[in-house]
């Protein structure tokens, strides 16, 4: 059942066609930002209206939707987006990565490897990886047209000169299909390698900036680096206190009013699934009310 009085998945059909045409061009030109006429959604910008429009154009009644925000399914943002599509498209929702056919995300890629049967939809605040270096749209567009990414390399090299390494730890720029430099959205650089040759289709929506882009399955996604300074995805050198995972991205959370801290998986489904399978971390059993929020 979907909500009466609304079109299926909220958007009108003309808007969906416009977004769908943009999505097909985005898939045909991996990493290139396709302009689109972004619509108002019943959530404020900054709450993932670009991702929501992409999801609304793609989702069907047989889909199973998961929404994560910083790896968690239970934040206000994730819950309201999930509820929105349950109401307007009548879809089943889940918190389990493995059960989802569409995963809308802000700030993370799930730890569970994605499959060819899944679509990952990213909410993107700033789609232009060159924007901080060049404010003029005509100039950044020219740079992409000519594959002139010297400015980006200069910026990264200055970082190395100053700090001895590239200090970017999230929204770390990538080269897609050997041609377009792309903003992966504010995911930790830890997640960048998951984009490379993923079997899943990855779609990106920036509502305020009115851009859609895509990475098809099995597409090369390289984090920018230099021969003498290869890419190193950053992660806390700790194990998850709850499930003991050493290979997942960790958040440091305050666990009591005496300043006690604990590292826990940012991906709550990953942590829950591991604990259900019997994995125990050093702080297993800790009453972690509100962890990750």
């Amino acid at each position, binding site marked *: 059942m979907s909500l009466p009085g609304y079109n*299926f998945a909220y958007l009108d059909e003309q808007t969906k066609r*416009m977004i769908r045409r943009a999505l*097909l061009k985005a898939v*045909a030109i991996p990493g290139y930002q396709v302009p689109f006429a972004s619509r108002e959604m019943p959530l404020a910008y900054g709450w993932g209206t670009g991702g929501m429009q992409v999801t609304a154009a793609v989702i*069907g009644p047989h889909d199973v939707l998961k929404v994560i925000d910083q790896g968690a399914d239970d934040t206000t943002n994730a819950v309201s987006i999930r509820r929105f599509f349950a109401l307007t498209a009548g879809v089943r929702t889940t918190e389990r990565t493995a059960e989802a056919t569409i995963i809308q995300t802000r700030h993370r890629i799930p730890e569970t490897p994605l499959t060819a049967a899944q679509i990952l939809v990213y909410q993107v605040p700033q789609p232009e990886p060159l924007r901080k270096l060049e404010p003029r749209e005509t100039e950044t567009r020219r740079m992409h047209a000519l594959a002139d990414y010297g400015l980006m390399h200069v910026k990264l090299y200055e970082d190395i000169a100053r700090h001895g390494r590239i200090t970017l730890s999230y929204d770390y720029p990538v080269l897609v299909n050997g041609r377009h430099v792309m903003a992966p959205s504010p995911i930790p650089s830890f997640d960048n390698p998951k984009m490379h040759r993923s079997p899943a289709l990855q779609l990106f929506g920036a509502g305020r900036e009115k851009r859609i882009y895509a990475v098809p399955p*099995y597409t090369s996604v390289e984090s920018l680096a230099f021969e003498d300074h290869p890419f190193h995805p950053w992660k806390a050198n700790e194990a998850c206190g709850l499930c003991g995972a050493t290979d997942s991205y960790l958040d440091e959370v305050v666990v009591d009013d005496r300043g006690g801290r604990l590292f826990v998986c940012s991906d709550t489904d990953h942590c829950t699934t591991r604990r259900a399978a019997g994995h125990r971390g050093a702080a297993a059993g800790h009453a972690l009310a509100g962890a990750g929020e």
Partner: protein
Amino acid sequence: MTTLAPGFADPPLAAQAAFRRLLDAMARPGTVLSLEAPPAPPPLAPAAGAIALTLCDADTAIWLDPALRTPEVIAWLRFHTGCRVVQAAEEAAFAFAAQATAMPLDRLSTGSDEFPDRSATAVFQVARLGAGTPLRLTGPGIETTTTLRVEGLPPGFIEWRRRNHTAYPRGVDVVLVAATSIAALPRSTAVTVG
């Protein structure tokens, strides 16, 4: 007065289902998928009709090859999609050809360096997908290489695809159609015979 053949029975759901197949086809070049397509007025193939119903409207200019320029096809497309049918292939966002040889390959828009998305999508009706000339495909969406067999490709298609691929990121994206089946060759796909 002639009666118009119906379009999608439930447009929002049918268009969504067809779009997902198209998205999947474009994301996995060379994969043959079937569309649930209502009968379209001949010689428009049902899958080509479903593509128009799913993606075309008053904002899209479409070009039809001479075989498709029948009053029935034009009336059906105009009524169900509201699209503009244009004479100049250069202006078309979508070009449909019932006779693959009639596709004006070198006149279709490939977009600009700044806006390569402002380019045509060419929908070729072919005799069969899954049989005929083997095309060897590599590129995004393909794990290693894949083979797509097509019966009824126009002569010069492979050479045109080679030129099209060289112009990347400008280029024309192709959807091949046979009855209710589709397979896509986005511009990013390198195509050779074999």
